[in-house]
């Protein structure tokens, strides 16, 4: 019932702006397109039902161990407290230069949020005097980087996709809108540091060099 009514309505709307004969053709066209869309949607739904929901996900991620060489670059370039060193933003970055990771499921750590004195004693604050970036923070940063676009990241890790297709690089390269603007160019030590990790052979020298950039 709805279909023909909608078509008739579309036809009437068409009549307001076109000649009577053209509106009739428009109505038929809309009806045809609607039918096509319904068939396509039905095919999609039927196809979608065949997915094995119990099958394990097979997303691959670049090496965590190698990421520890890359993390200081992300901490320096992306993780300031007014940018990605912030719980409210995608690609959360933790570390000695910015936001510190507090595991709220660990009662001892969670206390640091309520007790600044304890946070200070534990060096759980950014900047001078704070404890170095922890293993937990490396892990969180790795998860952030990989979870930004998990499917694409998996394809990059398999060597099926150019790393520059990732938002992780498109944003700082200025190829995608980025509140923090373009931060580095292709071929720079920053760029090579990250892409080398994504390609499975992190360049320690380029990552070290990137940290010396002003």
């Amino acid at each position: 019932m709805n279909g023909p009514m909608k078509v008739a309505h579309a036809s009437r709307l068409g009549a307001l702006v076109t000649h009577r004969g053209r509106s009739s053709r428009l109505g038929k066209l809309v009806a045809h397109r609607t039918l096509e869309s319904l068939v396509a949607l039905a095919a999609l739904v039927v196809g979608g039902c065949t997915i094995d929901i119990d099958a394990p996900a097979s997303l691959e991620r670049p090496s965590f161990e190698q990421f520890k060489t890359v993390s200081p670059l992300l901490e320096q370039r992306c993780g300031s407290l007014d940018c990605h060193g912030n719980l409210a933003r995608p690609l959360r970055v933790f570390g000695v230069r910015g936001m510190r990771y507090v595991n709220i499921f660990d009662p001892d750590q969670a206390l640091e949020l309520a007790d600044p004195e304890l946070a200070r004693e534990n060096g759980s604050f950014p900047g001078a005097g704070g404890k170095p970036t922890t293993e937990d923070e490396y892990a969180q940063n790795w998860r952030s980087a990989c979870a930004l676009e998990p499917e694409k990241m998996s394809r990059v890790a398999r060597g099926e996709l150019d790393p520059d297709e990732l938002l992780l690089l498109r944003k700082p390269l200025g190829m995608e809108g980025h509140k923090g603007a373009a931060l580095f160019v292709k071929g720079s030590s920053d760029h090579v540091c990250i892409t080398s990790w994504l390609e499975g052979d992190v360049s320690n020298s380029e990552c070290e060099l990137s940290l010396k950039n002003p």
Partner: protein
Amino acid sequence: MMRSARRLATLAHAGATLFAALVAALLVACDDPSLDRLLDALPDEAPGFPPGEVHRPGQPCVACHSPYGGVEPELSVGGTVFAVPKDDSEAPFMLEGYAVRLVDSEGETRVLRTNRCGNFLSKKADWDPAFPLRAELYQVPRDDQPDVLVQDSVMASRIGRDGSCAGCHIHPKSPFSPGVVEALKVDASVEPPNDCPPPWLGPDPRLPEISAQ
């Protein structure tokens, strides 16, 4: 003909309603809840210190002095330099005689000097820097030689986008704040200024929000 005209009018009315709803939705979407929370946490103006260059030390200047905050003049950068006593029972106090050197992404440099209440600022009309910025803190040891600067410290990270130092530098130190902008080399004989409003020393309005997560 008449029916067509009526339908056109109905269509126009529906379009206008839709447009108005869209504008209303966009206006609501322009609210920034985290900035609102920060603004709500700030105290009122201290008695005897009307708006001016020494008012509200330690507060996030650009939060108000921006198109969002609606206060003139618009600032690009603003903050307060503090001394933090070794004895935790004493509160941080503001420092005169310091300079903050900022270098933007295009190499433009500005040296902003603290006034008697520790505040320093740059109006956006004077300097609209390209973020991120590098920040260095200097002592100005002699009043008669203001160009002689002695380096105190260098900020470990860049300023990504927020011209308010106190947008991140909120007392006390916590997992989400390095504490106030602190001069590390302070003469022990320096005392808190007399004729200044009390500084804003937190609490960090973000902490309850974070604790709740």
